[in-house]
């Protein structure tokens, strides 16, 4: 499905960005454009990032840029 309708970016394209190392919504936006227009899909991109990393991971850079950084800040 199209997660970002504004920039026409599919779920699988975003997953590819995350697999390639994007560790935050801003990095996903930079890499594939998703979330760069109206921003209404940013929550969905964030949950895709969270899902990819999984809970309980506290040593990979993705966790520091995502869930734990948000909890701290």
């Amino acid at each position, binding site marked *: *499905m199209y997660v970002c309708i504004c920039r026409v970016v599919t779920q699988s394209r975003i997953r590819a960005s995350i697999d390639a190392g994007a560790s935050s919504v801003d990095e996903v936006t930079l890499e594939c454009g998703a979330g760069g227009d109206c921003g209404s899909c940013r929550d969905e991109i964030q949950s895709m990032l969270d899902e990819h990393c999984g809970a309980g991971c506290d040593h990979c850079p993705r966790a520091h840029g995502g869930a734990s950084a948000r909890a701290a800040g």
Partner: protein
Amino acid sequence: MKGHKQVVDALNATLTAQLTAINQLFLAAKVHEHRGFLRLARAAYKQSIHVMRRAEPVIARVLLLEGLPNLQRIAKVGAAEGPVEQLSLDLTLQQELCARLEELARTALSLADHGTAELAEDQLSKEQVYLHWLEAQQRELAQLGHDLYLAAQIHDAP
């Protein structure tokens, strides 16, 4: 006539689900049409227009209860890459709309706003017809397989 805030909020939540449905189904109808699945296109188009008509009394009710109808808020529009995926996004959308109407009926009844409860129940029975149609499509898909099912969507028998 001043209404309860909870009822106005529930009416606006219903309106959000309706506005989302109007847009998602209108887009789906045009994409189905573009791809040549005319039966699916007509069903989505008709439902989009029906929901738009049903949003009207919801807006009127919010105004009657001295609230402000929220036409600004809209949930995520589900746009699929293919017709079969679109049907499952539409099913989720329709379940959400029915859930909002059930919630509206419950809230209104608990606060003795029978006028709103009647509106919600009347609309719910209509939305359940489309919900049933979408569920039937899932059953047909499972029975026929994707190819046969999609072949049956090319022509539209009015």
